[in-house]
């Protein structure tokens, strides 16, 4: 089964650990992931704040390339990219008049036939069915599943899971032996939008998420988005300074947790790249 993958900029930069874990999982489950050839930036945040046509053209080009290369289904691990690609597909489906215009801009035909899935859907569809037999070291921890905003919102466009209290990641995590705690902050804002400009706000918002997870006794926070990860992990020093405490809880990508559960080494899933040391990894 050949599935396309749109990595997006983060997965090749700040979230290489994510990338590595995705591919490690794919390999372990004999899933072929084909990068969309010649993919380009999806324009997240920057473009759609400024120019609607551009913000649709950038993702549309990627989708058109996928179509052209016969990729009927693509997985988009980055939640922000996922959101942009889905939005584009949605807009163009509902405004056919835009379609021709965009086709002209990207100089390619765009049909809108590609199915776009996020990382959890990908896991759900291709990994879960074969997961049971592969779990070697159940991930027996209490986890706080943090979905962030882009994985489930806006529901009208993504039509994925319950907006306010999503469940899919909880279910996946429970399947590898974890206990998903009741986590009210699972879709609370981490401040990613202000990641560069107002780090104090990021510290405050992300801090709240971390605080609640620790307070509820979670051993790890699980995420499915490089933005969330960088805010909760990379910015930990700032957060600790702002909150004047020492939050220790590690933040793992959902793919990393599964990787560990099926016996991949911490290095195979890129845990060494984290800023907050993943103590769990040592325990395993």
């Amino acid at each position, binding site marked *: 089964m050949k599935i396309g993958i749109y990595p997006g900029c983060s997965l090749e930069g700040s979230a290489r650990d994510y990338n590595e874990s995705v591919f490690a999982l794919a390999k372990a489950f004999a899933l072929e992931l084909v990068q969309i050839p010649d993919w380009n930036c999806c324009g997240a945040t920057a473009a759609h704040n400024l120019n609607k046509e551009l913000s649709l053209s950038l993702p549309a080009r990627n989708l058109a390339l996928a179509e052209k290369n016969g990729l009927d289904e693509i997985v988009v691990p980055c939640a922000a990219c996922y959101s942009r690609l889905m939005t584009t597909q949605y807009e163009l489906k509902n405004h056919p008049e835009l379609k021709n215009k965009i086709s002209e801009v990207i100089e390619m035909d765009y049909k809108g036939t590609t199915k776009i899935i996020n990382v959890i859907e990908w896991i759900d569809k291709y990994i879960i069915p074969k997961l049971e037999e592969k779990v070697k070291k159940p991930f027996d921890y209490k986890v706080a599943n943090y979905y962030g905003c882009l994985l489930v919102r806006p529901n009208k466009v993504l039509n994925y899971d319950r907006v306010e209290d999503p469940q899919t990641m909880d279910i996946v995590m429970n399947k590898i032996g974890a206990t998903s705690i009741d986590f*009210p902050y699972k879709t609370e804002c981490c401040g990613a939008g202000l990641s560069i400009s107002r780090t104090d706000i990021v510290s405050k918002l992300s801090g709240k998420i971390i605080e609640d997870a620790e307070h509820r006794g979670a051993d790890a926070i699980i995420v499915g988005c490089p933005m969330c990860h960088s805010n909760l992990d990379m910015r930990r020093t700032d957060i600790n300074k702002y909150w004047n405490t020492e939050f220790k809880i590690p933040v793992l990508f959902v793919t990393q947790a599964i990787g560990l559960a099926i016996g991949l080494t911490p290095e195979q899933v890129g845990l060494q790249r984290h800023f907050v040391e993943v103590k769990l990894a040592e325990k395993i």
Partner: protein
Amino acid sequence: MARIGVFICHCGENISATVDCTKVCETTAKLKHVAYATEYKYMCSDPGQSLIKEAIKKYNLTGVVVSACSPRMHEPTFRKACAEAGLNPFLCEMANLREHCSWVHEKSESTTQKAIDIVRILVEKVKHNAALQPIRVPVTKTALVIGGGIAGIQAALDIANCGHKVIMVERSPSIGGHMSQLSETFPTLDCSQCILTPRMVEVLQHPNITLYSYAEVEGLDGFIGNFVVKIRKKAKSLDEKVCTGCGLCITKCPVKKIPNEFEQGMGFRHAIYVPFPQAVPNKPVIDREHCTYYIKGKCKVCEIVCPTKAIRFDQPDEVIEAKVGAIVVATGFDIKHADFFPEYGYGKYKDVIDGLQFERLASASGPTSGEILRPSDGQKPKNIVFIACAGSRDPAKGIAYCSKICCMYTAKHAMLYKHKVHEGNAYVFYMDIRSAGKNYEEFVHRAIEEDHVNYIRGRVSTVYERDGKLIVKGVDTLLGAQPVEIVADMVVLATAGIANNGAEQLAQRLHISYDSHKFFAEAHPKLKPVETNTAGIFLAGACQNPKDIPDSVSQASGAAVKVAVLFSQNELTREPLVAVVNRMGPPMYSTCVGCFMCQPVCPYQAIEREEYKTRDGKVIKTVAKINEGLCQGCGTCVALCRSKSIDLYGYTNEQVYTEVVALLNDY
């Protein structure tokens, strides 16, 4: 040969001031088939009418065109006059020379010409008019009331008190509906049970009312005045005639832990039960889904203990057919439960409850005997948060409408709480306060001013539990969207009022329409708020949209009057302006091909199937047939039918076609 009379009215000067009536008269007199044309100052006056009547007799007229004002004004007048002169009233047409001509144009040649044209159109039309006979249908003077909530009760009593028979069908074991679950009612805070129970008993004892509880309507045939309804009486597993309602069986039933629906799941009942102490009828039923005997094949404890031997384990469902002339649908509403509010933790945290649960907590006969206690640990909540518009007015949740009752019962709840927990704090998050009713606004103000309920204008984004408390996060929009966080012991959601489950199926069985939220649709939002699109079926109460008790009761009385009006006649007469599918001899039978594309267009479900069969029962041809009892004569089907097999009396293809030709050509 047609002999048409044309009667031109001056309407004082209203017409003759701008239209040269004499010229109109002279010109139309020359038209083919016009046997007589005349003008007069006031056609609608008695002498004017006599003029018409005499001319009909004298010239042996076969059609009359009164050229005067709008037919919407005087068509009945002139048709009646014609009838009095022995001419079928439907052979009279009106040409609108006043509203559509003299009043809207200046005096001129062209205005007179237009008047001539208008008369000509109607002369040509009337040649194709048919002598129609009014439709008469007999009326069965028994009403069916579906649903035994306060609306159904009110309607049934009103109709029964007019001296007509009523059959009431209630789905649950007892009548009473939601009102029986309420503690006290706004805006007066009187005890709901106290005012309701006597009326419930009245229903049971009324000689004109037959009550079928634990029963449902299964099918409906026929039309206004002549419905045949099929009612399924679900087996109660008990002979009601023998049972005295002593309740011994209940106390001995070993199955005790069934969540009690009446208590909104906050208490338990047995497998054999009466839903609540004041139930009417007050005789138990066996819940076969939970009864050990039905599950495992043995038990029968109730049968053993019953002193009158009333238990019947093998009792079958019973299907009754009844003839009724009118129907009042009063099946009420429900409120949104469960999964709908993950963000508010409903269903996850025991202390997040809905309004009906709160009613039970506040009710003296409820699970806590009227004390406000947290479901989780039985403690008195010190801080309580009420969230209004939980789901209502939220298009994202699929409910764009206002549930209408929540503002008021939330205020009531907050007050009841404060009356019982004096030291406690009550907060209400609201979007707007809608208290448009007599004494309603005053009621809300009492809550705020006298009972010191804290009203916060803003929405709650999330409720979550932390260290045994419920954290309610929201904003106060009156303080510039300031975030508010309240640590609460209990949260009450005023969840949206929604259509009762099964409403859609019932509507389909009754052939009435419903809106996108499955609430039954009224025939006209302003002028026919109790009628449905199906003649003879009326609405009462919250099945139409969420309503409070006074509104439900008024509408119920309204529906009852509609029924009484219908029952005041032995026969219904209707204008025969209905559609008809043509018929002819075999082998065609009709030009209808039976595509039934016309069926879905009829707003009144008037289009039925008719089968032609050989003697041995083989179907030769299936064609459409219009039920003239149901058809209202809109003609939508007529324009749709490709093969032109349907026609509409009064506006036949031939007539309208002729009008177009007459309008555009000189004669």
